């Protein structure tokens, strides 16, 4: 529990750091969850969506966001 205790004292003990942890956690979790679900969605619909075919019509293919 030494690590857990350290995490607690650094991130959760004070309200100020707790709040910052929440904000940072929400930001990174949102980025991760969005990217993860987008990659699943794009692999299910490979070749069907507009960004899969737009390079045929004069627009260079973009890197995935």
């Amino acid at each position: 529990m030494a690590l857990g205790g350290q995490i607690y004292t650094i991130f959760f003990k004070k309200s100020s750091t707790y709040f910052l942890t929440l904000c940072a956690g929400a930001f990174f979790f949102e980025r991760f969850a969005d990217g993860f679900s987008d990659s699943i969605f794009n692999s299910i619909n490979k070749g069907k969506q507009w960004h899969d075919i737009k390079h045929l019509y004069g627009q260079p293919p973009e890197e995935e966001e």
Partner: protein
Amino acid sequence: MFKLFKSKKVAKNLAIGLASATTASGLGLALALNVDLFASDHGCYPAKYPWFHDGLFNTYDHASIRRGYEVYKQVCSACHSMRYTYFRHLVGVSHTEDEAKAEAAEAMVTDGPNEEGNMYQRPGKLSDPLPSPYPNDEAAKAANGGALPPDLSLIAFARNNGTNYIFSLLTGYHDPPAGVEVKEGLHYNPYFNGGWIAMAKALYDEVIEYTDGTPATESQLAKDVTEYLRWSSEKSHDEKKKLLLKTFLIFPPILALFYVYKRRVFTVMKSRKLMFNPTKSSGSGKH
């Protein structure tokens, strides 16, 4: 009454069983009563076709939408309007912005009034709807023997079993069966309510040429234009399904967290013991 049962547990289980059986049969009945009988339809029931977008997380086939737009533009738009679909809707769906602008500029649009109060003609812009073939419904009826070609913007939702129906209708034209009298100005199609439709067969093999080189067979044309009309009916479809996937990914962890939180809150409630110890000295019942 509960003494009939061996224990409270049996009674409880029985009650739960009865309640769930009642709920299940009730739901079943409600579902059964909710099914349309199609008693008023005299058309053939269309077959179920394997549309890619039928899947829970599947988008439209955008290459097909693009081909479908070509079919609509070169065949359907001779009679049918799509006044709730705008050129801007094509951008990022089936056309690039420049292509959509070029498509829009092909149409002449009445705009105005200008500074002198006159209406004038200008090339179309992205903010214009797809051009209608007739100025109003009466003109459309007069030009089509009294039958109004319906607006196609929302047609996939305006008909039962939309996509399958449209595809079946477009490919379902053939000669009337023996003994059925031919009606003047109408065409036989078993999928149309009543069997006689004012629209003539419009899609034939190679009736148009696709710009992407896909062989333009009749069924290919019908499939692509159906996909295009389905897109036109629900333009937010792809976003919705992406959101559904995200919801499916996010909600289970949140539910698990709530369950843990509930257990935590209830530890106090469940491990608490309340006791009532009446004081032996006061027996009068006064408070």
